[in-house]
């Protein structure tokens, strides 16, 4: 009995920890489908949503009042709720070119004269539906009036049934808690816009994630190829050939494993500059063909576990050192090659400093630079930024899902992380 309680506790802990790790991914996915407006919601929206709106109409006949050339439309018959006076009157919305504006005023019946209008129907298009505290049915909020009071302010909202086509008379509500109703609406077009550029919403196409992802893939794939070829080549030398000074060189491999790239950053920049490599992909690809110390170490450890007899039998068959490398060792090292490939891919795909320094041309931006590019100061692009983040995570996630087994065992066997 005690045993199973312990088990349940462990499972609860596992699931809670799992949720903690999964939540950010849920968040980025759901945010990637939100609209610009939905991203700014406070408190945040847990799913992509839009405000429910309705188009309403109102009979204009017998409701128009003209004051010095401007027209006002009576939206509700009511006493002045703010002064609490007993005079009859009504709330009027100001019209501009026969469309309602956001200005609402109260006029007493005695001060004004209702006139004939030269139009019959007035449209309140895209009126937001609100949930009002204490009322079950959602109501459309046609107008809003805010005035200062002694402390704070008073707000009156003018509501109507949401499902009527023609509003008869709005209902004024003083200082009620209300909140727009939101429906689940994923905005898939975010992905298309992110592919086309940060200002795609405004119809201006520029460089987008289609180009960024192509560039990143190009760099990453070549880097992976370079690392696989060169590291396995070097590791082969270190693990399966005996030569003078082997130990000494290998110690240097280990010593440079810890060296942060910042130490060599500036001279390398100067070197690439003198080679004319700035603003090309070369500084991001070529170094990967010179075998990373960590990958050499990883592969050497793996190759040491391959039996010596493999080489010996091949040698008897007349296979040279290069032949043995290609025909015997490489095919037998697939698991560690996969590990190296993934680590290299993940590293180059997410590299920020390198592209930031070496790439100038907008058409050469990588995914990481693209994310920075999308943080435009001119327009609010948080939703597209989230879509970009999803796209930036996608290839790595796919790799992980397909090759999970290798990653786990790869790290486990060497006891070292990537």
């Amino acid at each position, binding site marked *: 009995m005690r045993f199973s309680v312990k088990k349940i506790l462990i*499972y609860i802990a*596992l699931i809670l920890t*799992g949720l903690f790790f999964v939540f*950010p991914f849920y968040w*980025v996915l759901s945010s990637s489908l939100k609209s610009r407006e939905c*991203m*700014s919601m406070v408190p945040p929206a847990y799913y992509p949503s839009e405000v429910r709106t309705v188009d309403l109409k109102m009979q204009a006949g017998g409701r128009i009042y003209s004051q010095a050339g401007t027209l006002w439309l009576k939206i509700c018959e009511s006493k002045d709720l703010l002064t609490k006076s007993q005079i009859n009157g009504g709330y009027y919305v100001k019209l501009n070119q026969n469309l309602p504006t956001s*200005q609402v005023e109260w006029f007493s019946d005695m001060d004004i004269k209702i006139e004939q209008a030269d139009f019959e129907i007035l449209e309140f298009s895209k009126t937001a539906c609100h949930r009002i505290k204490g009322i079950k049915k959602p109501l459309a909020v046609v107008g809003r009036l*805010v*005035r200062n009071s002694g402390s704070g*302010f008073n707000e009156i909202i003018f509501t109507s049934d949401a499902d009527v086509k023609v509003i008869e008379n709005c209902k004024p509500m003083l200082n009620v808690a209300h909140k727009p109703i939101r429906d689940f609406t994923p905005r898939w077009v975010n992905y298309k816009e992110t592919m086309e550029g*940060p*200002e795609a919403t*405004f119809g201006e196409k520029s460089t987008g994630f289609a*180009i960024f*992802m192509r560039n990143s893939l190009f760099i990453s794939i070549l880097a992976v190829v370079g690392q696989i070829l060169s590291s396995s080549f*070097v590791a082969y*030398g*270190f693990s*399966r*050939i*005996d*030569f*003078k000074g082997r*130990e000494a*060189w290998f110690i240097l491999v280990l010593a440079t494993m*810890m060296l*942060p790239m*910042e*130490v*060599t950053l*500036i*001279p390398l920049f*100067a070197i690439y500059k003198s080679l004319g490599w700035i603003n090309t992909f070369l500084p991001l690809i070529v*170094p990967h063909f*010179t075998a990373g110390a960590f990958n050499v170490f990883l592969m050497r450890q793996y190759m040491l576990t391959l039996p010596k007899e493999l080489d010996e039998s091949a040698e008897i068959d007349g296979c040279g050192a290069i032949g043995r490398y290609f025909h015997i060792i490489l095919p037998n090292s*697939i698991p560690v090659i996969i590990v190296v490939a993934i680590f290299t891919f993940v590293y180059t795909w*997410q590299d920020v400093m390198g592209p930031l320094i070496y790439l100038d*041309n*907008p*058409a050469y931006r990588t995914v*990481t630079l693209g*994310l*920075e*590019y999308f*943080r*435009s*100061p001119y*327009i*609010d692009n948080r939703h597209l930024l*989230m879509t*970009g*983040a999803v796209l930036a995570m996608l*290839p790595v996630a796919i790799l992980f899902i*397909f*090759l999970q087994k290798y990653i*786990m065992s790869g790290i*486990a066997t060497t*006891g070292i*992380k990537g």
Partner: protein
Amino acid sequence: MDYRIFKTTIIFYVMLAGFFVSERLRADVFEDASYKGEKIKVRYALFGGAGEQKIAGQMAKLFIAENPDIRLEINVYPWAQYWTKLQVQTASGLAPDVMTLYSENMGVWIEQGALLEIDKYVQQSGVNFSDYYSAALEVCRWNNKFYTMPIDISTRTIAYSITRLQERGIPREKWPSADKAMSWDEFKELCQLLTLRNGDGTFTQYGFGIGQMWNQTMYRMYGGSLFDRQVNPHASTAIADGNLSRAVCDVFKMQYADRTTLGFIGLASGAFDNLETLLISPKFGMCTTGPWALASMKEAGVNFGLAPMPRGSSPAQLIHVNSLGIYRFSKNPDAAWRFIKFVTSKPCQDLIGRRLKNLPALIASQDAFVNNDFGIKGCEAFLYDMPIAHPSETTANAFLRTEITKFGQRLEQDMAEQYSARMSRLTANNKELTEKDYADFAAGMNKYIDTIVPQRLRLFDENAKKAFERANMPEGGIAVRYVYPAILFGGFIFFILMYFRTVRKNLEDSGVKGGFRRNNKAGYFFISPWLIGFFCLSMLPILASIVISFTQWNMILPPKWVGLRNYVHLVTDEYFLLGLCKTLKYAMFVIPISLLGGLFTAGLLTCNIKFSGIFKAIFYFPSLFTGAAAAVLWFNMFNKDYGVINHLLSFLGIEAINWIDATHAFYAVVLMNFFWIGSSMIIYYAGMKQIPRSYYEAADVDGAGPIRKFIFITIPILSPVIMFTVIINTIGAFQVFTPALFFAQDSARIGEPGDSLRFYAVNIYNEAFNNLRMGNACTYAIILFIIIFIITMIQLKLSKKFVHTD
């Protein structure tokens, strides 16, 4: 089977790559295809978005029609990347022939030797100076010589929301108008009218949201200024200028006492990333804005009007000027000048005006600006202040620029902290706040502001003096210049040799079991890729780093030998010390997180449970995402208002924390590490799996509980692995860069907010590619090398002494 999965994945990626390659490269090149002769290549760089790209394209077409012998390439960068890109391009000798410069950075830029002096071109082409706004021309001159020509002026006005004014029922005669400046008092009153404050200290609507540069602009409108001269300021007037002190106080009182205006820090924490288009949010009655933002406001359906800035006693409107300069080492300066001349002439200036990119520098083009393509009324407001226009401070002293920024930031940060501290005290007992409470609160804040501003101004004055001194530092003697560096260089070589020796001594037993045939030639052939990499990409750069650290070098002009001066400066270098402390502090936080988190999750997984593979995958998955995407995601989740983390915390009764402000940003980045404990988990997990069951069984016999078993068996056996992760985390702390990049507004301001994210790697990047002080950056790099060296040594020593070895 395994091989097949591998192959399918590779094929998948190759196909994906192929799909993307089909998208053509989009280079903006303009040329006349019918022109047969040889073409002169000119490259033009500017900052902006797709809209600016379009305008530049239209100008380019006009230009090419008149100059068919030129092939024009246009590069548009977003503002956030422009400066970094320009710096790096200039350093790498690939700068565009024609570059757009912002008046604030001009001085530094010219002194660095990046710009060609164009006096002779200006004289020859007979530019009529009275055609341009004089303040704009003033910016382009440095030591009485022309270096640039003004293209447009970024000046700001006040935009007010007609909807908000109407909702509040403010009478028409009180509205601001485009042809008259408000007085400061009128402005204040309007802000007050538009502010809707709730009883709990929160706001439904702010009267005014400040935009970029608002504070500085308002100091000027009050007649206050930080320096006695615009160009080459040689002394600060921060204390002596009574106007300035009054202006600073008044501007900040509106933001942090009455809060009829929302200040920069408040805005940055809220859901208002875009300061120029604040009116899109229903939370604001007014804001400052420039011409470039008007079209997108109109497109978002905002009903707005424009008005000139409010004025104080002796007003001067602060303007920023975009001007075009020619790269000093441009191959075709003549052609570049033809382009500049064309862009500053009427057709192009009209285009800039009509498209509301900015206010054209050519006075004759102001009609096009007022009658713009977007039909936006009231743009006269931008012209109203031009007679009193004054360029912003322009200095060659890069240290001074930092001080100016620091002054504003730190002052505001003090006030923001003070505001939230006092406000949370006021709202602690959940009582409805009355008008009187607010009045008392404002009075208290006013008093605080009146005391802190003079203090800060005095501090600024001192720092400015230091900055002047530092810019005019005398050269050291022979000892500093040659003798000490030689000794140090020798020391470094010795260090490096020692380093390798220690590594060797400690790893001798890791040798390979022999048995393969000895073949020197084949051996060196196989390790040659690494050897090349080692010598060219590690050894040579490290030695070069040491040499560069003895020089002053901006990669544009030849390096200047300064000997040990860079090292001597480290002692007083605020950012260096700060960076070092920050990095170590970061490591102090991250080590326990990764250790405890890793041990906890690994412990859970080894509990003999079902689905452990799935859980392991879920726990590990996030640690693959340490880069930009994760930083972007967390930055969003950490937002004070719309961020999900604060919302989740609110269920626990924790008040909203502004995670991305100067006090908390560091901890936000630390917290991100919880997400990445998977990487240490997997190592501990593998280690735990290897512990023989018999150890635990023996302990069971002795009656040890699970905790005792964990402490006395698991931890000691794992100690080498733990040691390893500690070292990795410490070294990793010295490489934190990506979160800082994405938490800062742009790469030119990396390390912000405040100084909260000035990590070591950030400092290196900042010195090298934002300040172009390669010598200094290399000094940092060498110190880093020594630190890593020491850490590794300690690790090796410790691992021998304390760590369990089997």
